[in-house]
Structure formats: C-alpha cells, structure tokens
C-alpha cells in the first residue's frame, strides 16, 4: 500500500514538474538561451510541485491524524454539517470569483495580473470562513 502510494506520488511529482516547466517557459517568456529558459521553467516547475506537495501533504495529514477519524468529522456531527453547508454555499461564489479573476488577470497583465489571483483566493477563503461562522452560530452557538 505504501509502495503504491510512493510510486503514485513520485509519478505525480514528475508530471507536475514537467508541466510546471512547460508553464514556466510559457510564463517567463523565451528570452535568453535555451539553458536560461530551461532553468526558469524548471524553477517554476519546482514551485508548482512544491505547492502540489503541500496540498498532498495537508490532505494526507488530514486523513491520518487521530482527529480526522474523531467524532467531529463523523457523518452526522454538527461540525461536519457546518463544513458541508458552508462549502456548498461558498462553491458557486468561489467559481464565479475565480473565473472573474482569471478573466481580468488575463486581460490586464502587469502587476494586477500578478496579485489578482492571490486577492481572489483571499476573498474565497474569507467567504467560506464567514459562512462557516454563520452556520456555526445558527446550529451551535446562536
């Protein structure tokens, strides 16, 4: 089981690095020699792989730590219900916000394109947090 997981993770990392390198070359332009382009692409690829690695690590830990199998996340628990309601309500807005951000960033370019995705992510996370708080208040602490 562990062997399969490691093999899957390794293959995934390779694919991510290759894709990241391609994206990196596309994103950082084609200035410079082949070596410089490759280095920039590889750097972006590694950054993408690092982000994906953090994502996988968090997911794995979330599924492995004792609390994840505890009663709070059990089906039927009020905590689980709060998370489900907040996620369900936040999802359509998150898609809309990220779509808008992607569109504006693609058209704008420059610094705006650099920071707008991060701002969109903050808005999405804040939206989820506020909804979760509202449902928690309604179901538990109101």
């Amino acid at each position, binding site marked *: 089981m562990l062997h399969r997981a490691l093999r899957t993770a390794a293959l995934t990392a390779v694919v991510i690095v290759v894709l990241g390198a391609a994206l990196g070359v596309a994103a950082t332009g084609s200035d410079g020699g082949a070596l410089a382009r490759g280095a920039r692409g590889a750097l972006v690829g590694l950054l993408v792989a690092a982000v994906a690695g953090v994502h996988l690590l968090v997911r794995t830990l979330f599924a492995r730590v004792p609390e994840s199998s505890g009663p709070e996340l059990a089906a*039927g628990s009020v905590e689980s219900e709060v998370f489900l309601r907040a996620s369900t309500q936040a999802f359509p807005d998150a898609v809309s916000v990220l779509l808008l951000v992607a569109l504006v960033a693609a058209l704008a370019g420059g610094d705006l394109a650099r920071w707008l995705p991060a701002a969109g992510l903050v808005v999405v996370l804040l939206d989820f947090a506020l909804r979760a708080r509202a449902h928690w208040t309604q179901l538990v602490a109101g």
Partner: protein
Amino acid sequence: MDNHVRARRAALGLTQAQLAERLGVSRQTVISIEQGRFDPSLPLAFRLSALLGAPIEELFVPPDDDVAVHPT
C-alpha cells in the same frame, strides 16, 4: 425541531459525553440536538432511537406545519 432526547437520555442515566461516544459523534452534536438547533440525519436519528430505546416518532416532535397529511 423539538425533541425528547434530553429527557430520555437523563432517564437512562447517560451523560451527553457518553451518548455522543456511543453515537460516534461529537458532544457538541448531542448538545445541539437536545437544544433543537440541529436536526440529526436519518441514520443518526435511527442510532439515537436504538440507543435511547424509543421510536423516532417518540423522540422527535415535528412542527405542525411540517406534518403533511395525505388521506388515502
């Protein structure tokens, strides 16, 4: 939704923590159910019914306007 979970639990001498542990949910869940703030899922309601030894319809009291009567 109003319910008789607290009274039934007390009659059996169970604490909220003990009931929550037997149900496999958090104690906060039991508290919210007893306060009528949180309606349990159907599987959880069945587990409550089995643990408290009372039919679901005796444990939970739906609001009048939620009870649909369809004469046959």
